[in-house]
């Protein structure tokens, strides 16, 4: 038994969507998170870096933002800028949820 695993290389590569809250510092490092520990931390760091970049670009455009939301087909990422970083809320959008604003 187990020959199928050998043939197909173990688990299927389906990435779950993150759900929960992440706090990052001003360098984009994760300070605390309620996202499942199974979720890869490098991806959380990427989210943090992208969010800080968005705030930075807005400041450079002389249009400082306190909050930014990215609305995807299956995920909403809402970030609020804090003095020493940002707090990020991750909401997977399912068919049971109302349409995102």
């Amino acid at each position, binding site marked *: 038994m187990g020959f199928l695993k050998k043939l197909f290389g173990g688990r299927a590569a389906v990435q779950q969507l993150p759900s929960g809250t992440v706090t990052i510092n001003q360098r984009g490092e994760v300070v605390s998170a309620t996202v499942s520990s199974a979720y890869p931390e490098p991806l959380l760091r990427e*989210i943090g870096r992208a969010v800080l970049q968005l705030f930075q*670009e807005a400041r450079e455009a*002389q*249009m400082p933002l306190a909050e930014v939301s990215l609305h995807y087909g299956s995920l909403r990422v809402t970030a609020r800028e804090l003095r020493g970083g940002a707090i990020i809320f991750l909401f997977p959008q399912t068919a049971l949820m109302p349409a*995102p604003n």
Partner: protein
Amino acid sequence: METTRKILVLDDDADWLEVCREQLAQLPSKPEVRTASTGTRAVAQLDAEPFRLLICDLRMPRMDGLQVLTIVRRRFPELRTVVLTGLEDEEFRSRAYILGVDLFWLKTDMQRDVKLFLDCLESLLGDETPHGFRGVQNKSLIDIIQLECLSRNSTVLRVTRGPLVAKLWIQNGELIDAEVGGARGEPALRKILAWRAGAFENLPAEPKRERTIVKSVNALLLESAQAIDEVTEPTQTDFVERADHQKNVWKLSLLAAEGAEFVVVVPPDKGKIESWSTFQGERLASWARQASETARRLGERLGAGPLSHVAGAGSERRLLLLSGDDKTRSFLVGWPTEVGEGHLLEKTKKLSASWDS
């Protein structure tokens, strides 16, 4: 409320504010002059106390003069407005007049002829008639009717052309009656729209006026425009200029009717950026491109599906970016903070859908 002798001067240049203060002190009516260095402060001051006149610069960081004028026109319709700017650009002059400013002066002209400038201001300060007429310069009657109807206004337009006097009744944005020289209804409207020049004034609405026109305004204006075109046979250049002009009026009316602060349309390639009611079009377009790119890259990494839009909120305004891709444009709209977050997407999509119609 005593508003007659109060002037608010808005400019981001402190030295210029001082020059204005000195010059305005020479006005015979001795007005009380206040100053503000940002649009936000100016609006806060206007909220706090009544003013008779606002003198406003155009190019300012964050909230520029056109944005301030858009807000002021909506919130303080009785306030007289004067643009005093260093920008020698006819496009901005016409945009300012479309927003209903009373005077547009260049700073260089003001310094050259201070007396004439002060005479104009004195005349504006002195006119206390609460129901004064406010005209729009260099606009055809069709433009004016469209503006009134798009803004869902109720008014009576009194149009004069030499000895001829006509009236158009507009109720809740619908043209319900027209009258000229004994004719009424559609025949009267056709006669009036054939006038190439004249003057107009807004009179109070008459909601009880009997309705004689049932066709939609757009249909009537289109018929009339076609009839005029057939008679005048315009050249190709005339046609293009008129179409551009109509398009500009339409877009500004849409922006005002929806209550948006500005719109920036970013083409997918390196094409020309379209910006309305803001001087910071290039900067905003650059942010829109960067934000779209950053958000799209992140979405691909997370497997979160296609990017629908990016929303942002600052202390002065909300933003909504309908992000385009390699083939479609991005559409960035600035909204006042009073617009609820729940309505932003719907309102932005509506504006975007109507934009090129």
